[in-house]
């Protein structure tokens, strides 16, 4: 069906894209121009090339007119290259003999001058035509996929994704670096907007993870290294010593009772330091796995080498307390990876004017989540550090968010959790509550209704940014912890000052501090604000640049629990689609090293962002691992010997494209 090799017959298709393109570019003139280019057998313009009839047109021409190269002048290849490649394939043509000229995003959408637009569109078409004539037919290779998924992070995102995959009968390795799964959600008492109890939703899911036979749960563990590529990753997991055997422990807590410290003495990290714990402790009562952990920093035996070791004795015959336990490394093979590492709450101590860390009654929202929690350090009583009940409370919105000094983005959940905390604090203390907000953002399902409800409950709302928080000057020589709030009320148009005895800072959500390491380990990118970057916000929202790695939860961008859960299921579905199929097709446009001529200089060795280059010590040559290579071209440009070829991006093809772009400066190119 394909015409003899020596006769290149290119078909050029100019798309109107409704009026997206044709309103600016004279599409008929463009097709006419294409007809005059060398090797072009025919050129057409059509309303929607991507529509069924549009696709049919190309297929028919490939067969009837014996076309062997196709140029589609339309939108971005990101959008429809796959479509037109499929069209070619359906008609019996190698899909890589198709080239797109992006005359929508790069021409029609960036000018409204029809003369300039036509000139630029011609350049794009000429470039695509010259390039496509240099294309080679390429074959895709396929690899087998290991039917197992690694989930990193055991917050609600990781839990949900793991359960969905397990439900589909797939094996899951869930790695959580803290001693328990649950993430931030496990710290909350209630969740907006329904005010249902967080534990009632989360605890059954956490227990299900523990009981699910398809899930291998590794808490207090971290990913040590990731090797391999989509379909076949080799992952090493460091299981940090918890000094209590998960296999032997039955969760009786005798070790905690019998510890030589008779009273909790050390701040509990999980309670944001508001509660105390012993060196051997459970982070929180519903922790999963329900196994205590020993903190080597505060345990006398582990830190000083001197202790009666009551815990060992308390455990007795079971022998679950292992004070000589060491870190171990376990290795797994998985086909797909879901990253669900969540977020860190913004630390407001960097904003001196809010007094956090200096004024005792300034709290972060996360601390207050613990204070209102029945399982928290105060048993759910909302009291200040001195034990008193606050009477006037201010909640400061947007702390660290929408602020060009910190994060410019909106953290999306703070308005809503501030309303929730206003409601909960009011319910528990009957205090006067003031919410100081910049804009009230309540755009989710049931959110506006919740806002109205909290308003009706008598919570005060002040539209304005809090500028300063300071202690009320001493009265009768006595310094209290009451504070004066200064806020620029933008509705009244004046600065207001009022006193409160508790401040809650609605801190924003920010990327985890180790984001960059995690990004590198899994071959992903980050967006400007530092969250992991999805492959495309609309077309591939849970995919990443690394084909086997998917995203769920806040690590991809700020969102609330319902959105997190939905996204986690989406990521699980994507991972499932990959591993269930059993094979994965590799794009052929990778880099290839000509081993015969590679000098082994090793310049390229540590350049690949995807670690796709290996060095063969014996033959003294470098090699590209095609499963890992994304064809980014970094090594191609760097090889001083010029022996790395970017398949589908050869020098010939690129120069042809450049020459085409410059068609009006190189008139002889137009000679047919």
């Amino acid at each position, binding site marked *: 069906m394909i015409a003899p090799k020596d006769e290149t017959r290119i078909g050029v298709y100019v798309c109107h894209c409704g009026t997206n393109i044709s309103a600016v570019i004279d599409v008929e003139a463009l097709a006419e121009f294409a007809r005059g280019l060398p090797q072009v057998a025919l050129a057409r313009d059509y309303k929607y090339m991507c529509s069924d009839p549009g696709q049919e047109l190309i297929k028919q021409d490939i067969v009837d007119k014996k076309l062997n190269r196709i140029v589609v002048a339309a939108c971005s290849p990101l959008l429809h290259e796959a479509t037109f490649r499929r069209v070619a394939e359906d008609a019996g043509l190698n899909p890589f003999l198709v080239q797109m000229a992006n005359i929508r995003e790069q021409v029609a959408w960036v000018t409204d001058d029809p003369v300039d637009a036509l000139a630029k569109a011609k350049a794009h078409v000429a470039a695509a035509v010259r390039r496509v004539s240099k294309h080679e037919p390429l074959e895709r290779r396929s690899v087998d996929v290991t039917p197992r998924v690694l989930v990193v992070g055991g917050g609600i995102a990781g839990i949900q994704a793991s359960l969905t995959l397990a439900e589909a009968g797939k094996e899951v390795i869930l790695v959580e670096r803290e001693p328990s799964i649950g993430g931030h959600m496990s710290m909350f008492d209630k969740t907006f907007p329904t005010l249902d109890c967080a534990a009632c939703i989360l605890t059954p899911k956490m227990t299900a993870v523990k009981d699910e036979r398809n899930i291998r749960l590794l808490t207090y563990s971290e990913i040590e290294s990731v090797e391999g590529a989509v379909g076949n990753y080799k992952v090493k997991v460091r299981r940090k010593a918890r000094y209590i055997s998960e296999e032997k422990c039955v969760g009786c807590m005798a070790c905690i009772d019998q510890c030589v410290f008779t009273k909790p003495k050390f701040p509990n990290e999980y309670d944001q330091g508001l509660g105390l714990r012993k060196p051997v402790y459970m982070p929180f009562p519903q922790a999963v796995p329900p196994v205590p952990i020993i903190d080597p920093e505060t345990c006398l035996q582990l830190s000083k080498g001197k202790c009666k070791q009551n815990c060992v004795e308390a455990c007795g015959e079971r022998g679950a307390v292992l004070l000589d336990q060491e870190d171990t490394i376990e290795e797994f093979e998985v086909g797909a990876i879901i990253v669900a590492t969540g977020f860190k709450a913004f630390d407001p101590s960097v904003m001196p004017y809010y007094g956090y860390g200096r004024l005792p009654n300034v709290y972060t929202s996360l601390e207050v989540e613990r204070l209102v929690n029945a399982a928290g350090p105060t048993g759910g009583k909302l009291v200040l550090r001195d034990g008193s009940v606050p009477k006037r409370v201010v909640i400061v919105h947007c702390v660290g968010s929408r602020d060009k000094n910190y994060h410019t983005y909106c953290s999306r959940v703070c308005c809503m959790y501030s309303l929730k905390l206003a409601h909960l604090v009011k319910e528990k203390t009957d205090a006067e509550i003031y919410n100081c907000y910049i804009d009230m953002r309540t755009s989710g399902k049931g959110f506006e209704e919740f806002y109205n409800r909290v308003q009706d409950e008598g919570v005060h709302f002040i539209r304005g940014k809090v500028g300063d928080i300071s202690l009320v000057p001493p009265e009768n020589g006595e310094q209290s912890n009451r504070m004066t709030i200064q806020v620029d009320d933008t509705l009244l148009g004046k600065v207001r000052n009022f006193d409160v005895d508790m401040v809650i800072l609605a801190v924003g959500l920010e990327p985890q501090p180790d984001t960059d390491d995690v990004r590198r380990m899994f071959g992903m990118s980050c967006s400007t604000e530092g969250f992991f970057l999805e492959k495309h916000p609309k077309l591939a929202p849970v995919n990443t640049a690394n084909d086997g790695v998917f995203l769920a939860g806040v690590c991809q961008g700020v969102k609330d629990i319902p959105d997190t859960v939905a996204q986690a299921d989406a990521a699980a579905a994507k991972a499932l689609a990959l591993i269930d199929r059993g094979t994965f097709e590799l794009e052929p446009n990778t880099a290839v090293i000509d081993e015969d*001529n590679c*000098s082994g*200089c*090793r*310049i390229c060795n*540590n*350049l690949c962002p995807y670690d796709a280059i290996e060095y063969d010590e014996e033959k003294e040559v470098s090699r590209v691992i095609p499963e890992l290579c994304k064809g980014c071209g970094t090594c191609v440009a*760097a090889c001083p010997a*010029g022996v790395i070829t970017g398949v589908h991006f050869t020098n010939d093809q690129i120069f042809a494209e450049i020459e085409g772009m410059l068609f009006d400066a190189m008139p002889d190119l137009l000679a047919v």
Partner: protein
Amino acid sequence: MSEKPKGKMAFYWAASCGGCEIAVLQVDAKILDIAAAFDIVFWPCATDGKTRDVEKLADGEIDVCLFNGAIRTSEQEYMARLLRKKSKVLIAFGSCSQEGGIPGLANLSNRKEIFDTVYKENSATFPENPDDLRPQHETEMPEGTLYLPVFYDTVKTLDQTVEVDYYLPGCPPEGDNIWAAVTAILEGKLPDPGSVIGAHSTVCDECKRIRTEKKIKKFYRTWEIKPDPDTCLLEQGLLCCGIATRAGCGALCPEVNSPCIGCQGANEGVQDFGARLISALASVIDSEDPEEIDQIIKDGIPDPIGTFYRFSLAKSLLRRKKQTV
């Protein structure tokens, strides 16, 4: 070989140092084989002969012409065109004719600046020139008009002037490679026209030093350190061009602790030697901080053009410094 009728061979020397002429003798005793196979019809450096003798030859009468040197004067251009017409196979012999070579660095300046330096500013080259004289193309004398070749603003490679069939790289080309080319000609086994006759790998391939992954924090000038004899020079911070330079020399310079300066030119398929080298080095500078990177480059590579385009400026995509007209 002797049964075959003898072929005709020519040598010519344009803008170059003359080293290429001597390099021909590197083929040692085999020069006799060359003499047996070819009549040398023109070789101004070694034998007596006049341009008019060449002009008298039929077109294509010379079988092979080895042309060394770049084109920087009208006379050289004339000879290049003449020899092209008279030769079946024209070989650009050595760096200068292939890529401009050291004379090509003159493209960082122009005729006026060069003449100013030579005839006015530099008393060492021209001690007495009170009338500020400059060479002229035509000079009227009582005996008639005298002509000097026109000195061009821009140095060109041979193939920027006439069509070239093959290239023999090197400053100067290596004896083995010259012999390989001659053998190929004698046996009629020449590669595709336009090819470079030589290796398709780079000097590292022939270098015995031990290489590891490269990370460079500081570049040194050769006099600043005494390099370890076994480790890759580049990894020790010496700007060795071996990574980008066509193999064929046997890594002569690195062998004696001296970094490669790139005389064999770019490897097969590489368009611009300097650009290749720069992007390779840029990728292994061990810093993420733009200011530190700038400093590393400034401190260690004081003459970037002379380092990256020592032999290839005329042939490069840059070609020359921008002319202010």
